[in-house]
């Protein structure tokens, strides 16, 4: 038999083995098929989840199936892939030739003769021993052709831990994808989304305490205005001038107004440029000047401070400005600026004055105090200077209120008072709403001696998200100076006088005889001194009795001998 015949017979045995190993082959690739199917299911689930989220955000129905349909679709797709792939492998996958012959070798215990011979035949035997190995398989071929192969174990290999995790992940993603299709989720989001978006746009971020502060400030302002109206009726002209100047400064400031008054709405927008707002002068308002000192450190004038504060407040998000009482000219300017401020405040500030105006409790408080509006008009006409004074005081309170707002979230406990509570300066609540924001801008800077930029920045950011940052900590000194201890040390340590040199001198001296008493010789007497102590052994009582008996016995013995 030559190698060609051997090869042909090996081919027949190989086909026989491959047919018998079809199920075995399927079991070998089961893990691979399951892995591929689960991976496909994971990817598809992620795609559906992304589509669902996209449809929610865009407001369109990209994924049309419902929750149950989605779950069934995913699971069915994964399962069908596994089944189809397995069937394909069962029908068309063939065991390797070497595997098939090795199966015969193991069944026949031939020591890999068939597989070895097949390999050597395929590459033509090059050594005598390779040829001998090929010829050695002949008797094995006959056994293989006659053999009835046993059933091969078709037990599926256990799934790996990674595959288990993938399957669990697949089910989780399927559930998530199904849940995203549920009606409650859609309804919930669609229901709340407009309100949420509108609230985000129009709401005053500093709600609650700031509204309360504004309300209290407005009420307090009303009281102050009422008092001032009573006192000052004569200085309308001068106050009008002052108010004009102040309006210019007020308009430059961003102020949160508590609507109720048209003046306040026009002024509270933080009108930049301050054309129509009252601009108090430092001369006519000694309070302001005096207030400025503790409030604002380093600021030059009220007008500049107001402008700066207004600019700050426009950039910041602040509570609704307190209502003011501008003049007619101020009103027109304020209305213009109001619209302009509305646009600006819409960006980052706390809502437009209109919205604040409508919903602010300050407005409601003022309406309640003055439902007709006639008293407000009178005040506008007659007491412009008082408004200026009030606005200046309100500025101070605004600044304190803004500071409170800046600390509103962590310091809500402190917040629910009018402006000025948080202030150490303790300014009165006389500021106009338009100047409130100015004062807020000013006061933190006044309060914080360390840094204006930091205070302004804090103020600008305090209204929004950075509440609670508060005052800059006192700058701590670092470096060697901090290491110095204030321990007084003497420059010199008192020394002690030295003994000095010890001088030794030798003096020549003559020997001198010692004088002593004469002693006469005599006989040696007996010793009269005390002798050395003699140690007596300490005996136990039993030994003492023994010794006593010994001596008694000796005495008796001696007596007996004497008698004898």
């Amino acid at each position, binding site marked *: *038999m*030559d*190698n060609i015949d051997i090869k042909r017979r090996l081919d027949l045995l190989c086909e026989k083995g491959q047919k018998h190993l079809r199920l*075995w082959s399927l079991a070998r690739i089961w893990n691979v098929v399951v892995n591929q199917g689960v991976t496909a299911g994971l990817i598809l689930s992620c795609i559906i989840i992304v589509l669902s989220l996209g449809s929610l955000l865009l407001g369109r129905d990209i994924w049309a199936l419902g929750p149950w349909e989605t779950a069934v679709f995913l699971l069915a797709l994964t399962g069908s892939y596994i089944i189809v792939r397995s069937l394909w492998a069962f029908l068309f996958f063939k065991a*390797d030739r*070497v*595997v098939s012959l*090795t*199966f015969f070798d*193991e069944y026949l215990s031939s*020591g*890999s*003769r068939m*597989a*070895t011979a097949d*390999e*050597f035949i395929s590459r*033509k*035997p090059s*050594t*005598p*021993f*390779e*040829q*001998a*190995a090929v*010829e*050695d398989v002949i008797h094995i071929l006959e056994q293989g052709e006659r053999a009835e192969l046993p059933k*091969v174990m078709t037990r599926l290999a256990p799934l790996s831990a990674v595959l288990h995790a993938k399957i669990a992940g697949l089910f989780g993603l399927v559930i998530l994808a199904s849940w995203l299709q549920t009606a409650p989720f859609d309804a919930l989001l669609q229901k709340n989304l407009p309100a949420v978006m509108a609230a985000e746009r129009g709401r005053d971020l500093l709600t609650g305490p700031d509204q309360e502060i504004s309300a209290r400030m407005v009420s307090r302002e009303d009281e102050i205005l009422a008092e001032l109206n009573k006192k000052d009726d004569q200085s309308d002209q001068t106050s009008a001038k002052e108010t004009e100047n102040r309006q210019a400064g007020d308009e430059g400031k961003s102020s949160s107004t508590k609507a109720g008054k048209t003046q306040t709405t026009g002024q509270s927008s933080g009108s930049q440029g301050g054309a129509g707002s009252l601009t108090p002068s430092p001369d006519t308002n000694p309070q302001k000047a005096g207030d400025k000192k503790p409030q604002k450190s380093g600021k030059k004038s009220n007008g500049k401070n107001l402008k700066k504060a207004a600019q700050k407040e426009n950039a910041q998000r602040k509570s609704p400005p307190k209502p003011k009482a501008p003049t007619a000219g101020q009103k027109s300017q304020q209305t213009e600026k109001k619209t302009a401020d509305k646009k600006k405040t819409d960006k980052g500030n706390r809502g437009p004055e209109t919205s604040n105006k409508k919903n602010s409790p300050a407005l409601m408080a003022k309406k309640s105090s003055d439902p007709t509006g006639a008293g407000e008009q009178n005040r506008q006409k007659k007491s412009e200077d008082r408004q200026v004074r009030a606005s200046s005081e309100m500025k101070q309170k605004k600044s304190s209120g803004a500071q409170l707002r800046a600390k509103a979230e962590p310091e809500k406990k402190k917040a629910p008072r009018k402006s000025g509570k948080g202030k150490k300066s303790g300014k009165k609540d006389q500021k106009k709403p338009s100047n409130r924001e100015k004062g807020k801008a000013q006061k933190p800077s006044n309060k914080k001696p360390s840094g204006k930029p930091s205070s302004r920045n804090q103020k600008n950011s305090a209204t929004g998200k950075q509440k609670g940052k508060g005052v800059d900590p006192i700058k701590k000194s670092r470096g060697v100076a901090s290491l110095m201890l204030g321990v007084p040390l003497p420059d010199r340590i008192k020394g002690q006088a030295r003994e000095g040199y010890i001088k030794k001198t030798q003096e020549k001296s003559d020997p001198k005889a010692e004088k002593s008493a004469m002693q006469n010789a005599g006989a040696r007497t007996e010793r009269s001194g005390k002798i050395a102590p003699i140690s007596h052994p300490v005996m136990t009582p039993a030994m003492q009795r023994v010794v006593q008996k010994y001596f008694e016995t000796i005495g008796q013995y001696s007596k007996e001998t004497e008698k004898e």
Partner: protein
Amino acid sequence: MSTPNNQTSQDAHLEAGQFVETFNRIRSQIQNMMVGQDEVIEGVLIAMMAGGHVLIEGVPGLGKTMLVKTLSDVVNLKFSRIQFTPDMMPADIQGTQVLVDTEGGGHELTFQEGPLVSSLVLADEINRATPKTQSALLEAMQEHQITVGRRTIKLDEPYCVMATQNPVEQEGTYPLPEAQLDRFLFKLIVGYPSEQEYHDILDRTTGTNTVLVEGVSSGDEIIRMREIVRAVSVPKQAKTYAVRLIMGTQPGSDYAPDAVNSFVALGASPRGVQGLILAAKVKALLAGRYAVSVDDIRSVTHPVLRHRIVMNFHGQSDDVTTDNIIEKVLGFVKTPDGLA
């Protein structure tokens, strides 16, 4: 059957037959002297036929020295025995220049060969020698030559070093370095005989009967047998399996089980796979085959790899032996293209 070389295949049949016959003859003569220890005897003969050296480890009194002495008598090889001591120097085993008197009254230096210059060297208690003396064996074992000064002495073939080690008395010993351990093809563990073997030992050694062994082979025949062993073919499947086994002993390898990654500091080197293949060839011939199979490689894995694996501290503290590691590797590495 038409084959490229009909005669060569017939010669292969004859040579394989001769190999098996000689091997069995030598083994039977040794078994006449030795009682039991069949695996050790077969291992020693396989190592000799594969051209390697053997490290035999066992407690005293198990016949390690007698085994090697008997082998030398059976194969008619020049035998020398070296009893290593801590004060032994390399010159004591290699040889040294000796001043001898000449006839004319003069003196001359002649090289006095040491016990290392032999065919079959028994290095008794090699772990008692200093590393300096142990290193003197390295060149002889690897290159089959020794160099003393300017003189290079080629050692006669077949050259085989059989070293013994006492695992009990480790105090005052010098463990063999990895470089030297790697040069031994086999490490065989000699155990205690069974009860029946004790009786046989007593009958043979305490009576009046004396057992004589016959010389059934020679050095040239051993050389020829080594050539036959090297001619045995190795299929790709067996080669792949041997390589994967060696890689399985190396931590961090794809074929290494968790035990190897946890307890092994150093795995087998390429000398290990060489030893596996050479020893498997001898096993294949003894099984009547002309090519190495996976089963042949599995059967020689333990003696080939047990001294080439270095355990780390965790393994030593957990009392994990190299044989345990080899078992894990054998269970983890699958036969290529097999049904397992």
